[in-house]
């Protein structure tokens, strides 16, 4: 029988009540007395020298409070990058200053050139139109390979080239991999593009800066996935505000998908300007601004080679990628194509030799950073596509080829520096074959052919590294922060509990699932437990939510804090029951003395902690509140197998997804319904990438997919009903909950199966198509069919 509470139950998401009834409180709902509005004048050219900015006419316009330009920010720091990557030659990456407002040079369309603070937004906008810019345009650097060539225009004149870094991993394997590829019985090569995406959370970014002169306190309300990270980056690196004078609040956030991890110029601006004009300053992004100022995702151009012996055992893998950084390094930009990508290149397979080369390129485009999956989708896509191509070239079944090369023994140390603690790839593949009814495919294909459609089946595996990560390890790899998390379990006198967590919920349902864990541990109802998050003044500390780390890392901190609480409560119970604490057991909210019928309820113990009349004051303090920080011993490694079945209309090239199945191993599952929801959403975004979404620039650096008229988001009728399963569970061995993380799996695991399926369909129709770059729009599929 399914449980109805605690771990493994699927209570409905309590936060949905307020989200679905319009009672959520988002940053844009925050309006402060005396508030002003900022309108950013954004560059409409990709690359130019700013000769002068004349704001005099604008400053005289009605309602203008103040106009800021790059000169006003010369003295403050640039927007920092949180990860220092060291290149193949042992040199640090090139790291240009990322100014809050462009100063001297414009480097991408959408970059802030001036900021008008006004009494009303419309007045600020009116005034912005009166600002006179004198620019000298320069050629735009857009194509990554051209950007790498000698003599290319440089995005940053003060750097030696447009190459941020040329990274090799594992550099010592380079020659051995080259040799193995030379010696191989068969090598499959594939060149591909991992298309650039715009995350498009439903809620655009918003920032409200506030300054209190009475106590010199700055407050930033912002749409962030990690308020403490923003406090750290903005306070320490940009504005020089110490933590105790800076509060960052991220209330309800309407989706992030990675793009709200990063510290953005608009946040620093509103915080800075609020003090400068001594009034609150508010910015609400329009959707158009979001397209040209939210960090974009993906954008890799890759060549991958898979070497095999005569028996189709994988012997070596080599990949070369150009990764777009955009014009400046966003917060985690440098880590995405390196440590979040290269370390995953082994996938689910025991390929003994792997070499990954990544050239990170500056271009005159919006900065590119983590987007749902971040690096891992790029790794999975190329690997699972090249395996599929190899299977065709060798004339073997793609599932069998994968199986033959699976890692089967754990722990498994990959040749790319990570150690998988547990997994069972055979189990998820077998589960996939069952839920996807792979056996019934041939009949379904015949049926489709009768209707004039080509039907294809695509399968892939994936592995991801989640729960980032052991701080000492990421420190060695260049992270400029620790990646632990923290939680405070505050038990109130009557026994109800507030848990202050460093994770931030913006769609993940923490407010529902985290209490399930505490409820399970203590045995009190979930509605006695609340989660508090998103405010640096309320929570102990936290690195936030991304990389499927909330439950694995912050949930572990919460468990540790709850254990401390329970230990203390047992001491109190022992006192009340006149027993020894070693004999106290906690079950269903009752403390009892083992082997006796003596017991005391949770609420009586918590009351005693706050009304300590009968209390061991000489041994323990009153109160019942504990904090724990948790630093994981390893990443977690969710893995799975996905299958997609498509129909292709041979007349138009239109692809429809007929079936989609996902068999995931997330370790232990706290709330299966929420996990399914996460997989559903991830698949929607993965299918979006595979079939629809494409962020495109023209050669002048104009964003040509700058609105929903041209940027295609997946809609409900683009997607089938999914079959998702997470019953294969190999619990993580190193965190207390045995959980692995599920937030990104769908986005990582789905694009290759979609493309594999379309290639399969076209081949079944006699078209010699081996690859099509995403998104597989009707026109691209039709072009591929007609050029084959």
């Amino acid at each position, binding site marked *: 029988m399914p449980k109805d509470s605690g771990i493994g139950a699927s209570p409905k998401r309590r936060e949905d009540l307020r989200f679905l009834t319009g009672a959520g409180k988002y940053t844009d709902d925050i309006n402060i007395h005396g508030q002003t509005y900022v309108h950013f004048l954004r560059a409409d050219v990709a690359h130019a020298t700013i000769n002068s900015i004349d704001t005099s006419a604008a400053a005289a316009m009605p309602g203008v409070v103040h106009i800021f330009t790059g000169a006003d920010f010369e003295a403050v720091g640039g927007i920092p990058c949180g990860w220092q990557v060291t290149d193949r030659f042992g040199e640090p990456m090139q790291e240009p200053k990322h100014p809050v407002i462009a100063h001297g040079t414009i480097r991408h369309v959408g970059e802030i050139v001036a900021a008008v603070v006004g009494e009303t937004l419309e007045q600020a906008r009116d005034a912005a139109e009166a600002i006179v810019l004198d620019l000298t345009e320069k050629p735009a650097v857009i194509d990554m390979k051209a950007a790498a060539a000698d003599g290319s225009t440089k995005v940053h004149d003060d750097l030696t080239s447009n190459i941020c870094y040329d990274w090799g991993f594992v550099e010592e394997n380079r020659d051995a991999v080259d040799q193995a590829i030379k010696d191989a019985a068969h090598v499959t090569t594939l060149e591909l593009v991992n298309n650039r995406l715009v995350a498009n959370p439903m809620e655009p970014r918003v920032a409200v800066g506030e300054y209190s002169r009475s106590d010199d306190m700055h407050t930033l309300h912002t749409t962030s996935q990690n308020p403490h990270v923003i406090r750290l980056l903005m306070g320490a690196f940009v504005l020089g505000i110490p933590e105790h004078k800076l509060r960052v609040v991220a209330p309800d956030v309407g989706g992030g998908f990675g793009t709200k991890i990063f510290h953005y110029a608009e946040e620093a601006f509103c915080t800075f300007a609020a003090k400068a004009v001594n009034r609150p300053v508010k910015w609400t992004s329009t959707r158009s601004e979001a397209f040209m100022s939210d960090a974009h995702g993906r954008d890799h151009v890759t060549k991958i080679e898979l070497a095999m012996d005569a028996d189709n055992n994988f012997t070596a893998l080599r990949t070369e990628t150009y990764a777009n950084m955009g014009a400046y390094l966003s917060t985690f930009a440098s880590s995405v194509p390196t440590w979040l990508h290269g370390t995953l290149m082994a996938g689910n397979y025991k390929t003994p030799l792997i070499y990954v080369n990544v050239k990170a390129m500056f271009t005159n485009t919006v900065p590119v950073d983590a987007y749902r999956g971040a690096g891992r989708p790029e790794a999975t896509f190329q690997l699972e596509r090249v395996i599929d191509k190899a299977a065709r070239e060798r004339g073997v079944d793609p599932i069998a080829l994968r199986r033959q090369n699976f890692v089967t023994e754990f722990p498994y140390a990959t040749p790319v520096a990570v150690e998988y603690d547990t997994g069972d790839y055979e189990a998820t593949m077998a589960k996939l074959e069952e839920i996807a009814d792979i056996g019934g495919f041939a009949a379904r294909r015949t049926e489709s052919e009768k209707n004039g459609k080509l039907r294809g089946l695509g399968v892939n595996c994936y592995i991801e590294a989640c729960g980032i990560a052991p701080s000492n390890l990421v420190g060695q790899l260049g992270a400029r922060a620790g990646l632990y998390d923290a939680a405070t379990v505050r038990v109130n006198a009557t026994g109800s509990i507030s848990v202050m967590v460093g994770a931030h919920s913006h769609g993940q349902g923490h407010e529902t699932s985290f209490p399930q864990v505490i409820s399970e541990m203590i045995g009190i109802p979930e509605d006695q437990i609340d989660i508090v998050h998103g405010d640096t003044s309320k929570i102990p500390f936290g690195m936030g939510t991304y990389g499927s780390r909330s439950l694995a890392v912050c949930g572990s901190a919460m468990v540790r804090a709850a254990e401390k609480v329970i230990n203390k409560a047992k001491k109190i119970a022992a006192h009340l029951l006149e027993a020894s604490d070693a004999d106290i057991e906690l079950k269903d909210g009752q403390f009892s003395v083992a082997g006796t019928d003596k017991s005391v309820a949770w609420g009586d113990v918590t009351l005693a902690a706050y009304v300590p009349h009968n209390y061991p004051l000489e041994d323990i303090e009153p109160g019942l509140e504990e904090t724990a920080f948790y630093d994981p011993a390893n990443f977690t490694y969710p893995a799975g197998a996905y299958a997609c079945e498509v129909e292709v209309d041979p007349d138009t090239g239109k692809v429809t997804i007929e079936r989609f199945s996902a068999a995931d191993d997330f370790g232990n599952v706290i709330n299966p319904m929420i996990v399914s929801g996460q997989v559903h959403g991830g698949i929607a975004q993965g299918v979006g990438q595979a079939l*629809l979404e494409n962020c495109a620039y023209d050669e002048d650096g104009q964003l040509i997919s700058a609105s929903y008229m041209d940027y295609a988001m997946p809609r409900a009728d683009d997607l089938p009903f999914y079959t998702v399963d997470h019953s294969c569970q190999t619990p993580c061995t190193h965190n207390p909950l045995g959980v692995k993380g599920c937030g990104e799996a769908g986005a990582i695991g789905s694009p290759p199966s979609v493309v594999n399926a379309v290639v399969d369909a076209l081949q079944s129709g006699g078209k010699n198509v081996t690859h099509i770059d995403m998104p597989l729009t009707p026109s691209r599929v039709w072009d591929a069919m007609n050029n084959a």
Partner: protein
Amino acid sequence: MYAFDIERPSTIADAVTALQGEDAQALGGGQTLIPTLKQRLAAPSKLVSLSGIGEMQGVCVGDDGAVCIGGATTHATVSREAAAHYPGLAALASHIGDPAVRNRGTIGGSLANNDPAACYPAAALASGATIVTNNREIAADDYFQGMFATALDEGEVITEVRFPVPQAANYQKFLQPASRFALVGVFVAKYADGVRVAVTGASENGVFRWAEAEAAFSADFSASALDGLTVDADGMIADLHGSGAYRAHLVSVNTKRAVEAAS
């Protein structure tokens, strides 16, 4: 948006008067105009809303059997009220945009705007419709004059559109994946005196009639009549969503499908 005044007249005459003012502009359902204003790409001093004009609302059948649609009638209303009289037209209306767009957007606004990817222009041209304005009647063949260009004069209001009802008709819309306007849309209408075929979404000159297909279908109203006929890829729109050659190909595909589905 820039500031503007708004008037909401209740008669065509008052609307026409209100539109005399400098920089005044008609407001239909606002589905095109309001986003344009929000982007500050237009700066009318006055908007004259047509939605309160009763004589421009609704669907009726004229003495000559033509379906007459008031210029301020929403797509949603057309999809309901024209269904019994001209199902092909009603079906087209029911697939414009999403419910919110259909509940606001109007036939007059769509035809006045003449977006090269809009649906109604194909229906109007293929039906040989008459665009009735406050001071004249314009044949569809004379009305459409290229992308976003029409025969309308400044301040002229589309008060009604009259569609002769064909024996059989169908509209095939191949969706542009992002906007879900027509990447290519083809409307085929069979009348006693011949077949008309109008294509939207494809040409750099906006909606057009495909004369060769019309001749072929007038002789033989079947998909196979189209065999061997193609439109020239030159002059077709090429963008992120498809090349000129692809659009030209889709013209043939959609035309065949429209003939097969015509009822």
